[in-house]
């Protein structure tokens, strides 16, 4: 039950000839390594340079694939199985995929930026192609025929002209190792890639890739055979709960041990600002956390005056950093003077500020982690998106060699960015080290909303000029918001976690927001971003980080709402305006497809509608993650209640080569609902001292009443284009498309999201 030991499949892998020695420098200097560091980074765990790290064939011919990524509920392992089955010529059912186990896989970056398929899939495709090549060569020798005379079906290599003459993968290598080296590009993380001598198949040969396959893990979850992190219960386990300060920034001055003396076995723990309790049962731990009497320091209110003042704070703040490129684009200067001059010379100038509220990851269950630290070894069970980075970080935190720390990624509550998932495993590790027993730390509902890293609030300031003929003369996009990297997307060091900061690890100083990656081209077009200082430098409940489509929900809201406003000001239909100014044919194609699917007909502003319920339409487009999306939708607005319902939605999506249309459909449906949730409801409430949205009553999300009446998803498969991301690219279209539709329906432009019923009602009454 405890799943403490390796199961048989994992055991065979970990004890086989998996470690094949240091081959990292073998291929340095060849073409593949161009642009890579001169010396390969040190790899802890299985080397990427061994084919056996990636692919193994069992004695029964079944195939095991090891990936250093993980699945957040979009079925990445299914797509991987398709890619590998395709290259190896085995049945889908023969392939099983293990993910995110630092004992078995190299650091492929974990779950990150919709890179699962588009980056993580490359290494697996190349490894599988090489495995097939090695197996066919081996069969050629065994059968005494040239390799060119052979083909493979269902894991059996045979002579094309004499199908009875053949040998199976199981007979060739089943249960043994390949001992075949791979070239490695010396990259660690998302961009890690390997290749062998084999060339992967041409897309024209694909039989499995591009077909719809269902996820295998869903059955295990529905019949309750799957383990989540929360189910890991090693023998001699201690249950833990943390005790958080009532006021942001307060530190514990005194803990009254007697306050929990009535709970047998319950103990408290204090280090720096971190206070926790441990107990023999989970309920005892919960009870102890509630009863523990802690005296906290008096601190001045730290949260910038609370939510009422958020946007004043942002506008007034001196920027900590500014840049003009998207998230990972390096540093680029910009010049706003030509735009200002163009606007000054324009007949009309249109300006608008768009405001984006803080949002919480609010996972369906808050952070959970299990750690067993003993005898110089740490075993961690965690649903972090980045198990390898977490291994390195926990090693630093505990003062251990990373080779002595293992993180096993587990299924967990859905995770969409740098959520609280990284927090409890660190705390469990600290407590396990202190108490010498395995520890399971489970955060409460309130902690998961009040203390998780937040999506940063921002103000997007837009300006455009129009000439006599209503042509655009200049365009300014300026995003100013809280830092997307206040804590890092990888918890590769304790300074990126709450418990790390509370125990004296000073937070890093690195800054990021974002600018749109779309292809609009306007004269005198300038864009840049600025970040503002955090309310509280260390251990803040309002620290900010990546949340699904990070800083793109915000930038797209400003850009795509303003495009709508300028189109209307210019007297143009919103689709025609976009078609005129977008440059990339793939963006044009999704825009046209979404508009057509919704039945969009060009027209001007809608005539005022009578009655309490009015309808309107909106559209938006987004480029990012190597993918292109457009969302066209129709809303109903109840003017009395302020409720917005998305009645019909058409999504057009281009992610290049499609691996699994079934998976893409599921991901797009999921993005539809989660993005509606973020567009209409999700808003962190806080006063000047603490976060006050701490449960599903105070932090509202979408429910089944929000399901649209009709949904159409158009996927434009482009097999000749590189694989794009499919985990989040549709998300940023929804807030602007909905706000545009509400404006179309009511004639009232709401420039802040979420468009909660209260906010809409108030705007309509104003």
């Amino acid at each position, binding site marked *: 039950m405890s799943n403490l030991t390796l199961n048989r499949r994992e055991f065979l892998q970990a004890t086989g000839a998996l470690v094949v020695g240091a081959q990292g420098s073998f291929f340095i200097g060849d073409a593949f390594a161009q642009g890579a560091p001169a010396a390969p980074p040190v790899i802890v765990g299985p080397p990427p340079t061994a084919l056996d790290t990636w692919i193994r064939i069992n004695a029964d011919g079944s195939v095991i694939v090891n990936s250093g990524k993980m699945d957040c509920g979009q079925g990445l392992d299914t797509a991987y199985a398709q890619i590998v089955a395709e290259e190896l010529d085995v049945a889908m059912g023969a392939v099983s995929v293990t993910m995110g186990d630092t004992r078995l896989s190299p650091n492929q970056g974990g779950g990150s930026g919709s890179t699962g398929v588009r980056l993580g899939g490359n290494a697996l495709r190349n490894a599988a192609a090489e495995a097939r090549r090695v197996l066919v060569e081996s069969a050629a020798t065994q059968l005494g025929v040239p390799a060119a005379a052979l083909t493979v079906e269902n894991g059996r290599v045979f002579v094309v002209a004499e199908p009875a003459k053949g040998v199976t993968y199981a007979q060739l290598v089943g249960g043994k190792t390949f001992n075949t080296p791979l070239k490695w590009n010396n990259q660690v993380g998302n961009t890690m890639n390997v290749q062998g001598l084999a060339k992967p198949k041409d897309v024209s040969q694909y039989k499995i890739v591009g077909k719809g396959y269902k996820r295998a893990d869903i059955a295990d979850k529905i019949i309750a055979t799957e383990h989540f992190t929360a189910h890991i219960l090693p023998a001699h386990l201690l249950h833990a709960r943390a005790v958080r300060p009532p006021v942001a920034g307060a530190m514990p001055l005194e803990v009254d041990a007697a306050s929990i003396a009535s709970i047998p076995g319950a103990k408290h723990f204090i280090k720096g600002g971190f206070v926790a309790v441990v107990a023999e049962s989970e309920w*005892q731990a919960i009870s102890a956390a509630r009863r523990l009497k802690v005296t906290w320091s008096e601190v001045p209110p730290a949260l910038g005056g609370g939510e009422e003042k958020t946007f004043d704070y942002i506008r007034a703040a001196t920027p900590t950093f500014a840049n003009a490129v998207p998230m990972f684009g390096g540093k680029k200067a910009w010049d706003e003077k030509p735009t200002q001059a163009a606007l000054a010379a324009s007949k009309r100038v249109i300006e608008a500020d768009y405001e984006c509220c803080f949002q919480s990851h609010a996972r369906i269950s808050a952070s959970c982690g299990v750690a067993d630290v003993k005898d110089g070894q740490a075993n961690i069970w965690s649903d972090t998106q980045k198990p390898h980075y977490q291994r390195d970080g926990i090693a630093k935190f505990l003062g251990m060699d990373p080779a002595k720390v293992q993180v096993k990624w587990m299924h967990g509550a859905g995770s969409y960015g740098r959520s609280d998932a990284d927090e409890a495993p660190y705390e469990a590790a600290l407590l396990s080290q202190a108490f010498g027993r395995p520890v399971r730390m489970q955060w409460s509902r309130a902690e998961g909303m009040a203390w998780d890293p937040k999506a940063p609030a921002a103000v997007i300031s837009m300006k455009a000029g129009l000439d006599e003929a209503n042509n655009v003369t200049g365009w300014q996009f300026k995003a100013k918001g809280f830092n997307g990297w206040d804590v890092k997307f990888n918890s590769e060091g304790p300074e990126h976690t709450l418990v790390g900061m509370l125990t004296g690890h000073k937070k890093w100083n690195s800054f990021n927001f974002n600018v749109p990656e779309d292809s609009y081209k306007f004269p005198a077009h300038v864009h840049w971003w600025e970040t503002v200082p955090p309310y509280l430098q260390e251990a803040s409940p309002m620290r900010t980080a990546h949340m699904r489509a990070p800083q793109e929900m915000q930038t797209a809201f400003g850009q795509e709402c303003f495009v709508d406003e300028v189109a209307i000001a210019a007297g143009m239909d919103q689709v025609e305006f976009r078609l005129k100014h977008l440059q990339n044919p793939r963006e044009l194609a999704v825009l046209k497809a979404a508009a057509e699917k919704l039945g969009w007909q060009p027209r001007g502003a809608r005539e005022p509608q009578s009655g309490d319920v009015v309808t309107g339409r909106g559209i938006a487009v987004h480029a990012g993650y190597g993918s292109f999306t457009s969302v066209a939708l129709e809303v109903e607005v109840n003017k009395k209640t302020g409720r917005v319902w998305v009645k019909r939605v058409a999504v057009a999506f281009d992610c290049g080569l499609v691996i699994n249309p079934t998976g893409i459909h599921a991901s797009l449906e999921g993005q539809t609902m*989660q993005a509606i949730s973020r567009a209409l409801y999700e808003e962190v409430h806080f006063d000047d001292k603490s976060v006050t949205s701490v449960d599903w009553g105070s932090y509202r999300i979408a*429910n089944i009443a929000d399901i649209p009446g*009709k949904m159409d998803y158009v996927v434009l498969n*482009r097999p000749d284009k590189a694989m794009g991301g499919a985990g989040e690219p549709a998300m940023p279209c929804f807030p602007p498309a909905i706000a545009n539709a509400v404006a179309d329906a009511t004639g009232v432009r709401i420039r802040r999201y979420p468009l909660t019923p209260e906010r809409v009602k108030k705007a309509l009454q104003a």
Partner: protein
Amino acid sequence: MPRYTLNVDGAQRTVNAAADEPLLYPLTGELHLKGPRFGCGLAQCGTCTVLVNGVATRSCVTPTSAVVGKKIRTLDGLPKNGKPHPVQAAFIEEQAAQCGYCANGWVMHTVALLEKNPKPTDAQIHDAFANVQCRCGTHIAIIRAVKTAAATMSGAPRAQDPATHITVTQAKSAPAGQA
């Protein structure tokens, strides 16, 4: 600590629990069940749901002492003879999970609903799930699964669900542009 004998999935199980200890903790701790899960501890999300005498009940706030002598059914106990319950089969068929953590609440509420009302209307379905949360946004697939399960269990034709459709268009020659 008091000991309670509970009827869980048809078997008598004895557990230790404090007087005020909610049912969820002995189910997940001592009995190692994997269906009911901690979600909020506040009866707001449904993730911990079990059936008590056929009624969907939030085990995170229901005292263990209050269910002695009652029939407790869990997600773990739904399969019979190695086969998933029809509601589970429908959720698997319709792929009605993303992370799957909250699935317990949806499945157990579906079982409770359909055992009482095999042919629910859309409004009745909405009422039944008004207080069940899914963070991943799987609602669309979940409602498909509820309707599939209703059809299987009642033998009636499958009811219409919110129309959702996917078209995959193979672009013959992709336009030039960014890769």
